[in-house]
Structure formats: C-alpha cells, structure tokens
C-alpha cells in the first residue's frame, strides 16, 4: 500500500514516461481509431482495462511463471482479457464494435500492454502493477483523445458526432485518412517534446 510509489508511477506514466510520445509504443491503434472521438474513447477504455488487469494477473503469478514460456504466458493472459473486452463490446455496443472491427482484437499486440508486463509487472507487486497498468493506459488515452478531438473536428466538423463546425468549414478529408493521422501524431510529439521535455536533451 505504498502510496508514494503509486504517485510516482502515475505521474511518470502520464508525462515523462508516457507510452505514446516518449516510448513510441501503441502507435498502430493511435493512428487507426483517432478519426472518431467516440471510437477512441471506447478503445482507450478497453486498453486501460486490459493493461490494468493483465498487469495485475501477471504480477500475481510472477514468481511462478517459468522462464522458458514467459512470453507465451503473458500473451495468453493479455489475449484472454482482450477477447473478453471484445465480447462485452459486441454484446453491449455493437455499432462501435463494428466500426472498430479487428482493431479491438489487435489490442493484444499493442506493444504497451506487453511492454508494461515485461518491464513492470514481472518485477513488481500486484497492486502497484495494477496502478502502473491503469495509469499507463490513461497516459495513452489522453494523448489519443487530444488527437481524436482535433482529427474529428477538422476532418468531419463534428465532435462526438455533434456538428460543431457548420458548412462554412471545408472538411479536411485528409484528417480522417491515414496521412492526417501520421501528421497529427508527429505534430503532437513535436509540441510536447519540443516545449515540455526540452531538458531531456531532445534527441530521443
């Protein structure tokens, strides 16, 4: 119940050790779903849930997992949680599930979850690992939501499906497509690293 450690982990995961713009992980889904704010939030919740629980489970089992099959066991546990998320989505929010399509299943290969499992859960206690997993997910989420907000706004003129920019706004279709995603994320990384992480030396 070490609250100080939890606080340190939380702050790090949200900022200096952020999975997306510092460690450059989880990029695939960052680009794929951020053309729509609603889909993004669902994806983020799914990731937070999975990372948290998989960290918790793996940490609880960490002294028993044989070295040889370490990767397979962690992958299996992560896959199980992701499938549960997928099933729950199909049952409770089918239209979102349909829009996200295979990208929900691809959360399994999201480097963030595997990364936290290997870097943290295997060497830390369950409760702290749970916090690490959840906050790493939140760190990922806030980045995605900013990008999604901008992409949906500029690309479709809407926020959460509600038309915000009227007909006077010429929709930047490119924002809804692949190149827009890359550029938005690059811009985000540039702003954050250029202004806020300047004392880190920059060249990451």
């Amino acid at each position, binding site marked *: 119940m070490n609250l100080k450690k939890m606080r340190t982990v939380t702050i790090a995961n949200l900022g200096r050790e952020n999975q997306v713009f510092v460690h450059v992980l989880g990029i695939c889904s960052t680009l794929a779903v951020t053309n729509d704010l609603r889909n993004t939030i669902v994806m983020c919740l799914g990731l937070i849930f999975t990372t948290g629980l998989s960290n918790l489970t793996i940490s609880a089992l960490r002294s028993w997992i044989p070295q040889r099959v370490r990767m397979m066991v962690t992958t299996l546990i992560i896959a199980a949680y992701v499938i549960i998320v997928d099933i*729950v989505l199909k049952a409770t929010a*089918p239209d979102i599930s349909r829009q996200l399509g295979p990208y929900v299943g691809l959360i399994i290969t999201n480097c963030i979850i595997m990364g936290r499992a290997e870097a943290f859960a295997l060497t830390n206690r369950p409760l702290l690992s749970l916090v690490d997993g959840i906050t790493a997910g939140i760190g990922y989420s806030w980045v995605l939501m900013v990008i999604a907000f901008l992409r949906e706004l500029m690309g479709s003129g809407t926020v959460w499906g509600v038309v915000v920019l009227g007909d006077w706004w010429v929709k930047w279709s490119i924002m809804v497509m692949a190149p827009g995603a890359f550029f938005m994320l690059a811009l985000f990384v540039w702003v954050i690293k250029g202004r806020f992480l300047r004392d880190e030396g920059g060249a990451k």
Partner: protein
Amino acid sequence: MNGQKPRSKGRERLFTVFFMFAVTVVFVAAVSAAQLFARDAIKRNESLFLKRSVLAAAGIAVPADGAAVEKLYAERVHAADGRYYRVTRDDGGVVFVFTRRGTGLWGPIDAHVGLDATLDRLTGVDFFAHGETPGLGARISEPWFTEQFRGRKGPLLPQPEGTGAADGLFDAITGATVTTKAAGDIVNGVIADAPGIVGGGR
C-alpha cells in the same frame, strides 16, 4: 539460474508443461464462459442490425430504440421465400427489399436494396457488410453516399463526385473506383432481377 542437476531439470520441465496447461485451461475457460454468457445478446444484436438495415433500405425511418425496431419490423416486414422482403410503408404502400451480394475490391459487399411497388424507383440502399478500404471504398456506408439512391430511377451509371444528382446517375467515390463500380453493379443487378424474383405475387 542455479545448477542444473538432471533430476531438478526434469522436474522443472514438468512444472513448465503443467503450468502452461493450467494457465491455458483457466483462461480459455474464462473466455468461453464470457462467450456463452453473451452469446444470446450478440445474436440479438446481429439480428437487430440486419432488421435496421432492411427498414432503412425500405425508406422507413429507423427508431433508435432496439425494442421499437423489433416492433416495427414485426408489424411491417414479411419475408417472402427468403429472397426478398415485402415491407409496408407508413402510408400503407408496399415496398420490396432485396438482399444482394457483390464483389468489392477486397471481398464481398452485402447490401439491402429497396424498390417501390412499381419496381422502378429505389426507396433506399444499405451496404451493411464489406471489407473495403477505410477512408476510400468504406465510404459506401456513409449517409451521403447511400442517401443519394433514395427515390432514384435506375439503372444507374457512376459519375464523378458531385455531378451525379439525377435519375440514371449516381455520385462515385473519388479514389474508390472499383468499390463504386461494385456498389453500382449491386444496385443495377437488383433493378434488373427484381421483376423475375417478385414474379406474380404483387
């Protein structure tokens, strides 16, 4: 790790196998349990989705609430020998909705196409299943594309985006020629085959 005496190595291997087996069983069971638990809800959602699609293609306003959709569907839609649906409109008129599968760029495209009682004018189109490129071919699901078919008289020829607003034409999706053509073929195919399918019973 520490010294590998043959005996402890064997025991270690045995534990590894047992552990893998146990973990697999536990988690696969958890997943299967979730699946069993949710199976009915998922089936219901899928059937609801198809029902909404049929109603949309018939040109009937689709309620947001699932139960309302079920009620509306039960009242208005009668499936006739599985090849088409006979749907009653708000004003009592009859509409025919056909299910058709075409070939897109990446794979099959499934659509519900609705024609009015004369089989001349479209009442609506819904491309409910496809695997086309996101941002390009996948735009056949977008309202701006499907809405243009309402009330149009076929057969339809694709036109550059923005110039196809008249009977006999429709707006193509820029950059998605194959998918657009596939969509057009589906609609035109239904228009051509409809009289034969519906046949005598009107």
